[in-house]
């Protein structure tokens, strides 16, 4: 059991340690891409801090020794393709050996370009977009019926919101007051073929969820402390805590700040992020999604990273 209670005065230390870990995760993710060019690197760099805060911030209850532990929070990685940064984290947590990171996409490995649920630590099938939130609804409802107080976290892409199945689930969760459901949107403003605003502009995202009776929060998704405060509040069941009022948002095109439509609502956290975060060539490229970084490029980037 990895989850432990964190005292207030430990917070600075914790934030620092998460920050350090996040840096390590970013580098390891690039290393994986160096040997496994089939992986989606830009998509996996925008959510490094989100996953790092959930795991290293000890907000997510989980147990690497018992992946079926009933006391765990359920984490559904709906944007599976863009979660390669979770490989180093899961290895670091002890779900599998760190050596496995050197075998991604290799014959005999269980770590693929898109993660399958054969990987310890992944709850569901997630290579196809738009499934996670609906499955999350089912889990959240089941937990309620079982009297299990754990939370369901779903990590989604912003382009993923174009899938109709997502909105079926959004409607359902609002109606059934699934307040144990927390959806985090890695709002990196791009999908595969370009910027989302040029394809279908669905900003402000939070307002749309609020219409369907969700609480909506908006934060900057690369600020570890903001993420920590927000997600800690949610993990503890406070739907309005941790709002990022400082608005350290770089590419934020949204207008919504925070909706509190009442108690017993599901929550969406719109985390403004940068696709390819940390790699300038990717950060500015509308089709960073399908860009591979050559081993050479990666070597050059590595030395520039903190």
């Amino acid at each position, binding site marked *: 059991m990895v989850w432990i209670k964190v005292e207030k005065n430990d917070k600075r230390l914790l934030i620092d340690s998460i920050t350090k870990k996040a840096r390590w995760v970013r580098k390891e993710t690039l290393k994986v891409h160096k040997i496994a060019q089939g992986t989606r690197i830009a998509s996996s760099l925008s959510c490094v801090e989100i996953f790092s805060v959930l795991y290293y911030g000890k907000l997510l209850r989980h147990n690497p020794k018992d992946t079926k532990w009933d006391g765990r929070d359920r984490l559904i990685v709906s944007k599976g393709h863009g979660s390669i940064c979770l490989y180093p984290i899961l290895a670091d947590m002890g779900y599998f050996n760190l050596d496995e990171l050197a075998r991604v996409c290799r014959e005999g490995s269980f770590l693929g370009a898109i993660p399958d*649920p054969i990987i310890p630590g992944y709850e569901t099938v997630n290579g196809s977009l738009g499934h996670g939130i609906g499955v999350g609804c089912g889990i959240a409802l*089941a937990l309620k019926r079982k009297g299990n107080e754990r939370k369901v976290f779903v990590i989604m892409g912003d382009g993923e919101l174009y899938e109709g199945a997502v909105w079926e*689930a959004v409607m359902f969760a609002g109606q059934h007051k699934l307040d144990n459901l927390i959806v985090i949107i890695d709002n990196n403003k791009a999908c595969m073929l370009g910027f989302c605003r040029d394809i279908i502009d669905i900003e402000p995202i939070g307002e749309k969820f609020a219409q369907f009776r969700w609480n909506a929060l908006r934060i900057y998704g690369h600020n570890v402390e903001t993420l920590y405060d927000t997600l800690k509040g949610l993990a503890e069941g406070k739907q309005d805590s941790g709002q990022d009022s400082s608005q350290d948002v770089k590419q934020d095109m949204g207008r919504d700040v925070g909706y509190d439509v009442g108690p017993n609502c599901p929550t969406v956290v719109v985390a403004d992020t940068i696709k390819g975060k940390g790699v300038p060539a990717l950060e500015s490229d509308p089709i960073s999604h399908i860009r591979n970084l050559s081993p050479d490029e990666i070597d050059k980037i590595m030395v520039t990273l903190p």
Partner: protein
Amino acid sequence: MNDNPAVNGNHAMNLEQKSMRDVFIDAIYERMKGNDKIFFVSADFGSPKLDRLRRDFSDRFLNVGIAEQNLLNVSTGLALEGFTVYAYAIAPFLTMRAYEQIRNNLSLMSHVRELNVNLIGVGAGLSYDVAGPTHHCLEDISILRNLPNMVLFSPSDWYLVQEFADYSLQVKAPKYLRFDGKPLRRIYGNGSGINSGINMKDGFTEIKKGSGICIVSTGFMTHRALEAAARLARQNLDVGVIDFYVLKPFNEESFRKVLGNYACVITIEEAFINKGGLDSIVACAVNGMDTHIKRKHMGFGDSYVFDMGSRDALHRLYGLDEDGIIKNILECVKDLA
């Protein structure tokens, strides 16, 4: 197997018509009483029998609305947490609108997770005759057979459906239950309550032994097959009838053993033929057998049915009524001679 109704000729006792869904909903209702790990989920689809279940188990009944994709996803989530789920909708929308959800969240996922989700699709074949081709369902057998780890149940009567209730709880796999939309007569478990003819592991029952020619059918068409066989019996032609109800997984060896007694087999299904349905099961079983067995496949050709009329009228139109079956059998007789 001679306690079979068709063999016994006890047709008169089996006239009581019931709808599969009503029998099944009642059976699940009974089990929900003693088992609080059962969920019943509907995509805005009902039946008077469902009202009682909705009322008495309101915390374990869900109407997700007209949202077949979410029906599948929510059911998956419930099943991941250990619930046995019954997911209920109109067959073509259940199987086709949510096909990728069935594929990824049930078929694929159950490679690594135990998922007991029972998809109850009502309206097999042309059950919804006058509702037209959007409501006809001629693809489900084939497209569901494609999905690994799924159980495919295609019953011919409500007695089989009743028997399946416990099976559905015990066999913890995703399943598709292909229910007819119309009330049908009973075939199995006649008078005496004897039901030894049913074998869920074999997947089929030779409900009438014959010589030379046999019909292999599933669902509603087994009623037609029995009628055709009965008519031919009066002409002293002894045609076998094999009713296939678990199309996946089934015991191929047993099936081959039974087929081995015949020289010609005719498949009949309310499905597109030569597209991976029941006929494909037979074509595959026959392939590699020592004896050469002639095959003839009856079903719908490569076109939707836009004609208006009752199921009987449509079957007549497409040569799937008893006359059509008999015609095909007599052709086989000629071929064999």
